[in-house]
């Protein structure tokens, strides 16, 4: 959803200023110490219900050091400079089996934000939905 600065606030740390590479490394290190597999994902459709972003490469297992992942993040930034990119840590332990960390590491220069759509239905009820202004344009030309 949007906040005052029109910044997308999904996942962890999204109300903070953008993480530096050093801070990202420290977060990755935390996840690696817990034994979680790390994946890099990107999208240009930032709707909050769009949970499945595209994967950049394979998820990375059995790593010891964040340097390799940071290298991939930077590759992804180079390939998709104007997409949203997030880092996801997957916990495979029984009972969790789901992402346990997720935070945005790259965002487009301009984020137009979301518009609220009101739809009147039977009995003058109103259904609300939100719509990203960016998705008015076709994929790949949005930012």
């Amino acid at each position, binding site marked *: 959803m949007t906040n005052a600065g029109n910044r997308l606030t999904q996942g962890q740390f999204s109300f903070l200023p953008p993480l530096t590479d050093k801070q990202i490394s420290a977060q990755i290190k935390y996840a690696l110490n817990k034994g979680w597999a790390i994946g890099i994902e990107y999208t240009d459709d930032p709707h909050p219900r769009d949970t499945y972003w595209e994967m950049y*490469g*394979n998820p*990375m297992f*059995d*790593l*010891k*050091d964040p*340097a*390799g*992942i940071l*290298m*991939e993040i930077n590759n992804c930034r180079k390939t998709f400079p104007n997409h949203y990119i997030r880092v996801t840590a997957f916990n495979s332990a029984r009972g969790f089996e789901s992402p346990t960390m997720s935070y945005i590491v790259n965002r487009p220069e301009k984020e137009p934000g979301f518009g609220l759509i009101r739809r009147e239905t039977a009995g003058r009820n109103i259904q609300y939905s939100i719509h990203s202004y960016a998705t008015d344009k076709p994929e790949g030309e949005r930012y």
Partner: protein
Amino acid sequence: MAKQSKILKATEQSVDLDAEFRESNIREVLDKLDRELIGLKPVKTRIHEIAALLLVDRVRKQLGLSAGAPSLHMCFTGNPGTGKTTVASRMSEILHRLGYVREGHLVSVTRDDLVGQYIGHTAPKTKEVIKRAMGGVLFIDEAYYLYKPENERDYGAESIEILLQTMENNRDDLVVILAGYKDRMDKFFQSNPGMRSRIAHHIDFPDYGVDELVAIAKLMLAAQNYRFSPDGEKAFVEYIRLRMTLEYFANARSVRNALDRARLRQANRLFTGGKKALTSIDLMTIEAEDIKASRVFLEGKPDTATGPA
């Protein structure tokens, strides 16, 4: 001006190299290396030099005299069984203690782990291995297999390309150690001059002498709670002398195999000997007859004539 005053300041400060040395616990690792690895003089000298360099570098950094991280990629050449893999695993520990690598783990790979089977398979595979090795040491055994000049469509060259790139750009993140037999590695470097120039340390592992091999045998036995009887040791010295002249001699690896077979024979001797009450000394001791039964003595052939033994 600012730089001058910085240097001036640096000359005034002093650091205690000894204190730094003690603090890094590096002595412990180096002593362990000296104790547990027999012979290998040139290797040990080089490791001591590297350790000294890294230590001095660390002290220099405290005084603000940075010189950039030295390149520590290495190439180990030597005959089979001269301890290349063993030293590589020690190397990662040493570099970790000195703070050169962050994690200090060893990722040991061969051609299979790096080179893919079809177009576009090699790069992700090599990159994945590199990512796994980051923060530690990447050990590529029999590295000359990466390059197959007789097949120009071989994907090995692609893997070498990526390796070269990471060795240059991610020097702070990982140390690459190549290992292989001397003549083949030389050929490998001839066809990949870029690789040769990016490797700072070429270390040649010498063959062991008879005394060294016997010392290694004793260490190996001690680790498994065995020992030679005095006659057994004499027989083993004789065995090594004979075995060295035969084909497929693989230094410490041959010693290990010979000891494994001696253990078999010892077990058989104890079993068929009919002695009821065995003491722990009986169970521990390798006698001369356990060694003399080898085909090396009887027929002048290695025990397993089909392969290296």
